[in-house]
């Protein structure tokens, strides 16, 4: 039943050397700067015999290093682990057990497209920068082979019932589950704050250019030109707004163009990109939680962003991973799609409200914010009294709204929590992804029969979600749900 994995070791495509050389170009420019600086001090002209030799030898050493690195780099798909050998002068062996692989990213830049090759980054979810494995410049067949190999091995480990034959047919990607449309990007960008970034861009461009050029004259003549008549003024403002809006659309288009999601039985793949394409795939059971939030006007339009929480740190640079599941999606569509894509995340049909008496606890908790700060402001800065009233009013309103609109519930697999109020945020947390669960009751909460549940998610960085002021009975039920593994609602 178990097919023997090939034990031969593979090398990367020779195009790896020019690819890495291209990336190293930045270093050469930097080295050239350094050398020219040095030479100016020694008063030797840069474009002389010395200059060429120094720069040439620098490039040569780097090139030899790259050739050696390529020569020594091999990978091997063993039964239990991925074995990598690498190094330029000092070689090392690295073993990555398959169960530690959190996700695979496939990345294609322009250079990849020209050569018809692709790169794989294998995430291990460790915070160490050396922890991920890069298999750069692979042929497409090799890449799919590796991906399938790893996925089928992991599938077999997790699900002994699934026969390998069945597993491979299931691994064939289904037709796409979701693809972003240009009008979605456009609508979402136009109603968000991203057009404002145009003015930051304009300002930073101005700053950069004014180092080299005398821009002030041009700017002032532009200003006088455009304020000649009312028609000109309106036209200029209109032009600026149009530019800003199109920049906002462009900015999001760059991020999310071609965004689509494919799924199979065990993992989901997120593809995106415009000039360079990335395909990020993650096993479904490594997704510990989902969040859904909407900002500003998006809330009124019902557009929200859905993100995944997993052990892969999305903040880490240069990784091309994606934490975003749906960049801009109608809330109803998201609620419809999530259970289809991730069957673990079944949306509960009925949610529970936070009891009325919770307002008391909430107001006690924030007493410093709505009473302390405004009173201090009122007496110490008489000219800021309006601000004091405003702060008091906002804090109290937000507490009341958060009581009124927060909901929570459990389903057999997920803990659902919706934090209502001024900045609504919904969490779906898988039971297996919860590292610990804390129930806490302050003195006031005990009096009113309330409790707070704090959940720590198994993610990088560790994430805590706090469900405040729920009835103590439900909190106890939630504890039982967490450990005993059945739904308290059903039990009741």
């Amino acid at each position, binding site marked *: 039943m178990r097919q023997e994995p090939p034990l031969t070791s593979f090398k990367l495509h020779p195009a790896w050397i020019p690819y890495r050389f291209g990336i190293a170009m930045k270093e050469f420019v930097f080295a050239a700067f350094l050398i020219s600086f040095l030479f100016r001090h020694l008063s030797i002209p840069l474009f002389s015999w010395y200059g060429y030799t120094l720069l040439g030898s620098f490039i040569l050493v780097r090139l030899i290093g790259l050739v050696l690195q390529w020569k020594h780099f091999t990978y091997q798909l063993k039964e239990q682990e991925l074995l990598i050998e690498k190094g330029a002068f000092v070689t090392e062996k690295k073993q990555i057990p398959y169960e530690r692989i959190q996700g695979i990213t496939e990345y294609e830049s322009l250079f990849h497209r020209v050569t018809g090759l692709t790169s794989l980054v294998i995430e291990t979810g460790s915070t160490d920068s050396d922890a991920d494995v890069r298999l750069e410049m692979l042929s497409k067949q090799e890449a799919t082979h590796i991906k399938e190999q790893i996925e089928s091995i992991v599938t077999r480990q997790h699900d*002994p*019932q699934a026969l390998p034959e069945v597993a491979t047919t299931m691994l064939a990607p289904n037709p796409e589950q979701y693809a972003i449309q240009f009008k979605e990007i456009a609508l979402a960008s136009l109603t968000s704050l991203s057009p404002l970034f145009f003015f930051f861009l304009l300002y930073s461009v101005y700053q950069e250019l004014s180092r080299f050029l005398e821009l002030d004259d041009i700017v002032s003549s532009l200003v006088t030109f455009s304020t000649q008549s009312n028609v000109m003024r309106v036209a200029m403002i209109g032009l600026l707004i149009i530019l800003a809006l199109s920049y906002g659309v462009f900015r999001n288009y760059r991020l999310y163009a071609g965004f689509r999601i494919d799924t199979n039985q065990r993992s989901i793949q997120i593809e995106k990109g415009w000039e360079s394409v990335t395909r990020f795939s993650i096993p479904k059971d490594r997704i510990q939680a989902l969040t859904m939030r909407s900002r500003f006007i998006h809330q009124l339009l019902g557009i929200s962003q859905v993100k995944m929480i997993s052990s892969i740190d999305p903040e880490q640079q240069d990784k091309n991973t994606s934490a975003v599941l749906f960049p801009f999606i109608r809330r109803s569509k998201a609620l419809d799609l999530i259970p289809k894509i991730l069957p673990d995340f079944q949306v509960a049909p009925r949610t529970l409200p936070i009891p009325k008496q919770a307002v008391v606890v909430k107001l006690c908790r924030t007493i410093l914010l709505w009473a302390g700060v405004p009173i201090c402001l009122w007496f110490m800065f008489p000219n800021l009294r309006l601000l004091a009233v405003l702060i008091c009013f906002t804090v109290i309103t937000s507490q009341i709204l958060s009581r009124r609109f927060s909901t929570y519930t459990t389903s057999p697999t997920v803990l659902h929590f919706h934090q209502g109020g001024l900045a609504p945020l919904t969490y779906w947390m898988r039971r297996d992804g919860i*590292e*610990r669960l804390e*129930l806490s009751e*302050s003195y006031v909460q005990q009096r009113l029969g309330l409790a707070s549940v704090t959940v*720590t998610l198994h993610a990088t960085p*560790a994430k805590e979600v706090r469900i405040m002021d729920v009835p103590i009975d439900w909190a106890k039920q939630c504890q039982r749900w*967490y*450990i005993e593994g059945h739904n308290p609602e059903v039990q009741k």
Partner: protein
Amino acid sequence: MYELKEPTQTISKDAIKVWRLTEALVSTAVLIGLIGLLFVDTYYQWSSWIGIVLYVLMAVTIISALIECTVLPVYRQKTWRYEIDAKCIQLKHGAFMRTHLIIPIEKIYFVKTSQGPLSKQYGLATVKIGTIGYVHDIPFLPLAQATEITQRITALSDRTSRKERADATGTAPDFL
């Protein structure tokens, strides 16, 4: 069928003494430091507000030391409960601010006991339970009990990981 039990196990009575002693030592050290600073302050004639701040700090230290040495250790010891069973570890403490933490056995990465010089005097040890993100303490248990708990948790987590492995290979787990 499994049912989540309310935690009942208590920590050692000697914990009160250890907490008191530790607090007394720490407060004395802080006080000595503050008095030293006060001397330097008067000797070099620093600006007056530094002296005021030092007196306030000293007052705060003394008050907190008084509370920490009298009521607080008793309150802590009396309210601390823990429970270990096949599925999870429960840690519960506090009365005015009650917290009840549940850690499933399969999320535990390591268990160890640790002994400071003071707890050694009373033959006590603290059990440290590490998950991926955090380390949790069960403070001041008699040494023998702490070792026993550590071994029990290790055995339990071994069993859960063995179960996972058994699940993966498709064979029936041997302990059922």
